[in-house]
């Protein structure tokens, strides 16, 4: 029964992708931009958690909170300084600025903390439980549970609170929501804050899974999570969840049954196939354009 343990490991990896993909999809849904610096916010979060645990010997929950606080502030500051002046600019200009921010964060981290990778302390106990013949580590379980909690909280927040409905309104029609008295700039800032906070949670899970922290650690998970967001239908929150989980499962199965080195090629190949048959992603909405 190797299959079951692969499936659970895939769900674990997919949960991390899903949490990161939420950040991409929310920002895309509301600000209509691809935030390429999102992966590097994960990296900053991982460094903050690393120093909180090793230098200040904080317990894990406090370290996660510290990482979340720093990332949230960082996300909002980046949005205010770099993206807000470009609200009216063509989307390519915003994309290039996001790339600039990404370079800035990576090279800043390299200057501050050196480019060599640091070993992330194993704060989550290494043991596991056995399900039938498959054994599951606590880390994987915690990752999956965290992802489910994040999803439930976010869905409740989006659907039940006033800010949540304002966010949904903004993603549908910014002009109309401004006329309804919604502070659109505020909503965009809140979106960036939530996305970056989630990135911090993902960063701790990611750094514990591959126990190392380095300045470019965020770029590959960032690209994969972006793929996951597109997979599920960019702009859709349940889509990011489904897309992230599926991407994780496909990646682990491809590694286990086909080839470790070719797993990336398979993941992106599946993405192209899905886009060919369902261009808006699995759960994306079809938009009809009227002449």
């Amino acid at each position, binding site marked *: 029964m190797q299959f079951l343990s692969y499936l659970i490991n895939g769900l674990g990896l997919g949960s991390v992708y899903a949490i990161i993909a939420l950040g991409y999809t929310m920002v895309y849904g509301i600000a209509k931009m691809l935030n390429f610096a999102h992966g590097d916010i994960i990296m900053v979060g991982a460094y903050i958690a690393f120093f909180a645990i090793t230098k200040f010997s904080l317990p894990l929950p406090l370290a996660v909170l510290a990482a979340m606080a720093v990332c949230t502030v960082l996300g909002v500051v980046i949005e205010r300084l770099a993206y807000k002046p470009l609200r009216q600019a063509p989307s390519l200009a915003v994309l290039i600025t996001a790339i*600039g921010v990404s370079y800035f964060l990576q090279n800043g981290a390299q200057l501050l903390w050196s480019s060599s990778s640091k070993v992330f302390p194993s704060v989550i106990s290494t043991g596991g439980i056995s399900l039938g013949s498959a054994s599951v580590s606590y880390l994987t379980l915690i990752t999956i549970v965290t992802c489910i909690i994040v999803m439930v909280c976010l869905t409740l927040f989006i659907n039940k609170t006033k800010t949540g409905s304002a966010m949904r309104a903004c993603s549908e029609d910014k002009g109309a929501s401004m006329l309804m008295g919604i502070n659109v700039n505020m909503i965009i800032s809140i979106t960036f804050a939530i996305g970056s906070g989630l990135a911090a949670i993902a960063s701790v899970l990611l750094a514990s899974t591959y126990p190392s922290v380095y300045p470019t650690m965020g770029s590959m998970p960032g690209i994969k999570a972006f793929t996951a967001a597109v997979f599920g239908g960019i702009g859709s929150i349940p889509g990011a969840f489904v897309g992230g989980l599926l991407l994780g499962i496909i990646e682990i199965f491809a590694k286990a049954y086909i080839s470790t080195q070719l797993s990336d090629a398979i993941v992106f190949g599946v993405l192209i196939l899905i886009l060919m048959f369902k261009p808006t992603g699995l759960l994306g909405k079809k938009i009809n354009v009227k002449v």
Partner: protein
Amino acid sequence: MKEKKSLLSFGGDKKQRGRFLSFAIVIIAYIAVEILMKTGNLNSLFTSLLVPITCYVVAAIGLNLNVGVSGELNLGQAGFMSVGAFCGVCVSGMLAASIPAGIPRLIIAIICGAILAALFGFVIGIPVLTLQGDYLAIVTLAFGQIIKSIFMNAYIGMDSEGLHVSFVQSNFKLQPGGKMLLNGPMGATGTQKIANFTVGAVLIIIALLIVYNMMFSRSGRAIMAARDNRIAAESVGIPISRTKMLAFVTSAALAGAAGALYGLNYSTLVPNKFDFNTSILILVYVVLGGLGNMTGTIISTVVLILLPELLRSLQDYRMLIYAVVLIVIMLVTNNEWLMTKWKSLFAGKAKGGA
């Protein structure tokens, strides 16, 4: 309003001036560099950067045709460069015995690289270019990753029995005396360096000729019409998918040619060289140079490749400064107030001169 302005700048005398200017810049720069090299005034660092600069200029001109003229975002230009590079290296390696002279072999390798990259572009373009929206961006991003991981696992070699291709290292065996062309993650090793600056400069001129002839012809106007208003263009009978495909395949072919030249400039070339960051870097050259503006693309590519080298004295801070420069340029050029001030300054000068 903005669309109208950009269209106007293509028309009339300005169009001719722009074309002339870009050819003039390339030729003058080529002559200047040759003189500097002959008199020994160019240090080895800049000499080693000459061929890579020409490669990136060609790839960026191609990408500008796709992003600026056709209006489709492409995040996988490095993938096409990679296809061209490894195809070129393999072709050159295979022909080494039959064509010992460097230049004809280089030209054949460049043509093969361009054709293979164009073929890949065509295959990718079929499902994507019929769709509306940013799908090309995502699919080309995925293509870049796929190509990278395929070349990381490709083992190609040639011996007395012919060509061997394998994706599993343990299955790959060559007869004694055989020649390894591609060695998985190690890439191409022991390549004969046959690329030179003159061929690079000629390649830029050819790329400019192709792109300008396309832009100012019937098909180029169709490409721009499809970019500016898809529905209006369709209603006057322009086949949207076919015109977009033309721009995309040409862009891929130019990237392939550039890649082949790049690959033959180094004795070793790893597949990791052409990753997502390289694609993004080429996109940055295009956007900073100005969408649809080939002269701007050439200048920004040269400046942005030389900038980190010129900032070398700042050591560790140079990439940080590079990032800040990038952000500030984007913020300033998209700030309407600053741009109107800037333009009025120039208008005033022009009046004063007249």
